[in-house]
């Protein structure tokens, strides 16, 4: 960490690789997705939103899995390494942002395709709950306390969420099965994938995943630096208090 602290940023050769992959892949998604790929037979131009919506959805689910695994790594690891906690927090922050993008892009796509911004179908409802659950997780991370207290509290919340989300999803599926009209509006959108469209979609997934890795790595390191600064501030303050008591 020491040599990184003297540089102007927290980038390393590893994150640079992710950054390059992300830039190239997302560049193709923007150019290819908007100009090169054909419009869908059924949906027309609105299918282009999928190039953003599907990868961001995938990344947000990935992010929450990372949060859960890192939280378990912190709680059950022998050394209770705070690095796990930072990764969990960074992944959750990135995941929540990507999920917001997913909900917004999906909502816009829905307006164009179904005519409504929202449907109470199981997948959307569960996604909305997942989003709010992780907002709550981030709020718990913001509570007072030492890094260790924060880490333990948020790890437990994250692991409880792993159990809670399937329960919520199951209840919502059962609930919506009572309302039969959902069959007309398939959330998959019935896209017949042209080869170029499929390629762009996969490039998008790769690009957004690389972006996720880049963001989480940087965020995690910034959090570590912030913890170091905070503890040094406390050390300085303590030294000053001690110095006050020393006779001249």
């Amino acid at each position, binding site marked *: 960490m020491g040599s990184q602290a003297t540089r102007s940023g927290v980038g390393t050769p590893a994150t640079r690789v992710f950054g390059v992959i992300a830039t190239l892949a997302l560049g193709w998604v923007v150019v290819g997705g908007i100009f090169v790929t054909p419009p869908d037979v059924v949906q027309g131009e609105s299918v282009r939103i999928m190039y953003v919506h599907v990868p961001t959805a995938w990344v947000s689910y990935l992010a929450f899995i990372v949060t859960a695994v890192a939280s378990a790594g912190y*709680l059950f690891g022998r050394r209770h390494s705070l690095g796990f906690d930072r990764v969990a927090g960074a992944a959750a922050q990135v995941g929540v942002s990507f999920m917001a993008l997913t909900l917004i892009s999906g909502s816009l796509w829905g307006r164009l395709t179904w005519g409504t911004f929202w449907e109470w179908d199981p997948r959307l409802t569960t996604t909305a*709950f997942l989003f*709010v*659950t992780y*907002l*709550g997780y981030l*709020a*718990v991370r*913001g*509570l*007072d*306390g030492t890094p260790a*207290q924060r880490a*333990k*509290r948020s790890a*437990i*919340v994250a*692991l*409880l969420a792993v*159990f*809670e989300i399937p*329960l*919520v999803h*199951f*209840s*919502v599926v*059962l*609930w919506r099965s*009572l309302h039969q009209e959902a069959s007309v509006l398939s959330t998959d959108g019935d896209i017949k994938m042209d080869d170029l469209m499929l390629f762009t979609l996969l490039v998008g997934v790769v690009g957004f995943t690389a972006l996720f890795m880049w963001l989480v790595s940087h965020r995690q390191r910034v959090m570590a630096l912030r913890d170091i600064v905070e503890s040094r501030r406390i050390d300085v303050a303590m030294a000053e208090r001690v110095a006050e008591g020393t006779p001249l």
Partner: protein
Amino acid sequence: MSHPSLGSVALAIAGKDLRIEWRSRVVINQVLPFSGLVMVMFALALDDDAMLQRTAGGLVWLATLFSLFMIVQRSYAVDTQDGALDAMRVAGVDMQAMFLGKSLALAAQLFVLEVVLFAVAMVLYRVSPLPDESTLAGFVLLVTTVICATLGLGFVGTLYGGLIAGAKGRDSLLPLLLLPVLAPVLLGATRATESALRSGGAVVAEGWPWVAVLVVFAGVFGVGGLLSFGALIEE
């Protein structure tokens, strides 16, 4: 020297919480009137007798959830005020017993609240689990629903309340944390209650799968709470 059993410690803690509530009457004097008021406000907002009758189950459980936050916060305010929670932990009180005891006390208070709210609903919204005196099926479903849902609410409220007990800025955090987790309870309890009250043509038999959801929920969080409550309180 005999070691007290998990059950007896849990009952002692539940008794303590309930005795404190009985002597201070905070839930009785503040939360119960608040929840009754919420039921009246629903009638003002929805302004449709038929709709009120159809949605009575949902309204009762919503009012219960809103009151849950206040009861949980009160339960932990009592313990963190003079460091009672820390004192009990240092004295060696088994944290699993504490979780069970506090959940039990919370569930008992919620049960009383729900009985009152259902009575209010029968009067204000004109619903009844016994539309014809010949069949008890609806009433049995309703009682089972209330018990299973209340157990789940007790476990979850105690668990998440303990999570943020003593932390600053926690008051508005509890609803944000709890409501997503409680979605299955709201769904299950409301659908089962609607079946019990035969709202909107629902049949009693349709309610029992939802009771199963409530039981699973209570089971998951009962076990989850037993396992994690100790780690939460130990700082």
